[in-house]
Every structure is written in C-alpha cells, then in structure tokens.
C-alpha cells in the first residue's frame, strides 16, 4: 500500500516537473523568437542606413558602390541562417573598408551617418540579447529529461548568430554626442 502511494506520488511529481519544464521551454523559445525578430529589425535598419549612405555621394565611388550592393544583398536575405551571417559579415567588412577609405565621413552630425552609427550599435546590442536567449533555450533543451520526453515539441533548434559587429568608431560617436550636448557650456 505504502509502496503504491509512494509510486503515485513520484509519478505526480514527475508529471508536474515535466509540465513546468515544458512551459519554461515554451517561454524560452518565445524569447528567442522575439529577440530574433528584434535582431532582424536592427539588421534591416543597418542595411538601409548603409544603402542611404552609399547613395548620398559622401564616400569615394568604388567603396560606396560595393557598400550599396552588399546592403542590397543583406536586405534581400531573410531569416538568421548561414546565408544571412555571410551577407552581414560582408557588409560589416565593407563598412570597415569605407571607414578606412574616408574616416572623416564617419564623424557624426549628418543624418545618414548618425542613423548608421545608431543602427550599428543597435545590431551589436540585439545580437548579444539574441545569442543570450538562444543559449538559455539550448541549455534547458539539451538536458536529459527534456530530450527524452521531447518537451521542446516541434520547435526548431535555435542557433547563435555570429557576425563581426565591432564598432571601430564607437568612441568617435560617443564623444561627438557629448560635444553637441556640452556645447552651450563652452
């Protein structure tokens, strides 16, 4: 009798744990989806800002043309798969090339440049939040019980998004913001 009660208790606890983990996983996947959507939105902003910058003739023609073309490729690629990583990496590399070719263009103050600096910083933030969400979900998914009971259901296995989003001009942008704000003080 005692054994039977014990057995039932174990089963009840196990079911409670599994359903709790399943709902936790569900929430983690939702967070990955939200963070992924946010990252895509930031990538689109960055690519649009690149395309605008390429079209205003502030940059030397050869680097500007390549920048515009690569921004176009990035805008035409959906999702966060390998293809997108490759497109965004090429765009990042071209941005670095532009910065080297014409560093003075990247001094903040004009609209296309400010948009680009903001969007590039947004990509770096969003990518970190997205990868954090992915790792959180993977951590729970890869444990033994959730795998055994397929608690993740049909949700796709999320993957980190790895691109070069370093901002060589970050210090420029920050102090320039401050210059503008501090101007009345002399």
């Amino acid at each position, binding site marked *: 009798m005692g054994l039977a009660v014990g057995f039932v208790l174990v089963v009840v606890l196990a079911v409670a744990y599994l359903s709790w983990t399943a*709902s*936790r996983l569900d*929430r*983690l996947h939702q*967070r990955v989806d*939200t*963070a992924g*959507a*946010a*990252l895509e939105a*930031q990538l689109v902003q960055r690519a649009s800002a690149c395309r605008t910058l390429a079209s205003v003739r502030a940059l030397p023609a050869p680097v500007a043309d390549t920048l515009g073309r690569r921004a176009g490729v990035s805008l035409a690629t959906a999702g966060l798969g390998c293809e997108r990583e490759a497109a965004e990496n090429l765009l990042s590399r071209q941005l670095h090339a532009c910065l080297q070719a014409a560093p003075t263009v990247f001094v903040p103050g004009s609209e296309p440049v400010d948009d680009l600096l*903001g969007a590039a*910083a*947004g990509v*770096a*933030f*969003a990518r*970190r*939040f997205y*990868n*954090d*969400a992915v*790792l*959180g979900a993977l*951590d729970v998914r890869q444990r033994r019980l959730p795998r055994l009971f397929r608690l993740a259901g049909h949700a796709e296995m999320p993957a980190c998004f790895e691109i070069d989003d370093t901002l060589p001009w970050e*210090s420029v942008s*920050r*102090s320039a*913001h*401050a*210059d503008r*704000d*501090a101007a009345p*003080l002399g």
Partner: protein
Amino acid sequence: MVSPYPWDVPGGVVAHIRDLAETLQDLGHEVSVMTPVDDDEAPLPAYVVRAGRSIPVPYNGSVARLTFGPVSATRMLRWLRAGQFDVLHVHQPETLSLSLLAVMCADGPIVSTSHAHNTRSRILSLFQTPLQTQLEKVQARIAVSPAARRTIVEHLGHDAVLVPNGVHVHRFALAQPLPGWPGEGGAAGFIGRIDEPRKGLATLLDAFAQLAVARPDLRLLVAGPGDPPALPRSLRDRVVFLGLVSDEDKARFYRSVDVFVAPNTGGESFGIVLLEALAAGTPIVASDLDAFRQVLDDGRAGVLFPAGDPDALVTALGSLLDAPGERERLVDAGRRTVRRYDWSVVAREVVRVYETVIVSGTSVGVDEATVELWASQSASSS
C-alpha cells in the same frame, strides 16, 4: 522602472534611477517609477509610485530590507495593468526584492540593469532554480561596469551589454566652491562613508600627516557620513569634516579642492565619485582598482597609485600639488573623458537597448501564471 531600494534612503542605485528617469523625461519619454518608500510622509516627485514600506529581515549578520509581499504584489499588478508600458526596466533583480517581484508579475519586454559586482545572495540561492527561471523573462540585461557584467555571466550564466553610470556634467562643472576654499596653501578632498574601512580614509590621513609637515597651509576637506576619527592635535584644525552633504553641496565640495583623492581599497564596482570629480574639473589621485583604472582611461585622466599604500599616495599627491601644469592637463583630459558619461549620452544608449526589445504593437502586461498562483495562495490562506 522599478527600484529595489527605498526612494527616501540615499544610495547610488536610487540616485541612478532618479537621474535616468528625469533625463528620459527631458528627452520626451514618459516614465513611471515603482519603488519602496519608508516614510509615508516623504514628498515624492510626480513620476514616483509607492510600493509600500520595506520590511527589515535579519540576514547574513546584518539587516536586509525587503519589499516583497502580497501588498506590494497587488500594487505591482495594478501598476502594470494601469501603465500599459512599452518596456519594464528593473534594477538589480538578482536579489529578493521589489525588482524580482516585478519580473514575476510582468509579461512582455523587460530590461534589467545590474549595479553591484557581487549580487550573489544566500536568500536567492535557496530558491535558485525557480527564481532564476523567473529571471529568464528578462530580455535584455545592462551592466554598469565590466565587474558587474562579470558577476552576471559567472553567477547567473547570462550575458549583458555595458552601459555605464551617468553624471550630470554641467551641475558639477558650474558649482561654486565653498567660501574660503581651496585657499592659498592648497587643499585635498575625500568623499565617502568615513567609518567604512574600504573607502580608505585611513590611508589618506596617514599620507596627509606626512605631507602636512612640509606644507604648513595644506588642508584636507572630508565629506560623508560617519563619526570623525581621533586626530593628532597638529592636524585637528587642518582637516575639516563636512558630514553628510546635500547634492548641491556635494558639487560645491568637488570645486573646493585642488586635488580629489579616492583612496579606496576595494569593494568599488564603478567609481561614480571619480565621474563627479572629472565633471567638476578637479584633478584626481585614485587607487589602482580595476573600476577606477577603467574610468580614468588607464591613468590618462587621473593619477593612479597602489591601493592601500600611504607612501605611494604621499608621492603621487605631493607631486601633483606641486605641478599646476600637470593638474591643468589632467583636467583637460578629464573633461574629454567624462563627456561620454553625461546622462544625455548614457540615457540615449539605454533607449537604444529599449528599442531592441520593444516589438511593435505590444506592451508590458501581467503574467497570468503568477496571478493564478497568487490567487490560489490567498484563497487557501483565507
């Protein structure tokens, strides 16, 4: 925004929340701050909402104050429902606090900021798994310093972006020195809890006693709460204790000395006092803690000395007092350094973080699972 600490008890995190909230409002955003308030009579700005008093709980040898119960939860849910916020920003949610309660009650875009570099709490460890899963609802984490970020990564296994503390540069830059200061003979300054050993006043007094011998008119100005230590007779009228100062007098304090000294021996995760001194245009001598090194651009915006070494401080402080040209150079470098910490710059970065978690068409709601749990708890207890 949610504060874990009482609004009417002065502290770094509360000041950060107040300054951020007010700067965001200046930038045209709507802000509401939910916070514990200990004094029912305390006057509050219009954007502050009371969550109730904090309750003292004996913990870890001292007393922790918590605001974490049914009354606060009811107010929190009402605030969340009424607010329809685009984003919920909680501060220091890693400990059992109003901030953690907010995370439990809310559903939607949540951002957190971690201030301390050691947030591991034994109370939290007890409930590690269930509470940590609540923190998984936070979509974006901000750390104010690399040390704070390291704590999040190591103890909680999450990542965070760096957005530093801010300072209202102009408030310090334009303050008037206190009457009679700094004076002809030179003056050094210290700010912080006098009786907190890690603030390092003992190191500074030791060094000052040595410097005072050869400099008959050198004075030391000390601001901060606590009982002044006993001093040798020769120093008594050369060390002036201001006690706890108002925000306005704090700004004037920095402008009243020739050199600001931060002799801390540890326990600092950021070093807001350095930002304030930089903003005031006061040259700095600081101990070489990681956090200080970071703010002072590795020594370019201030002189660093080995923490806890009074003899090294004598050399550093003495040579800086003797070199007006060098002081001017440091002030110039400091003004450039502090610009990126001005609240107008820092708040814009926080907004950028908000933008990455806000999904169009949604707002912060209440977590129905928590509401149900709460309802069943109160039903069974009544």
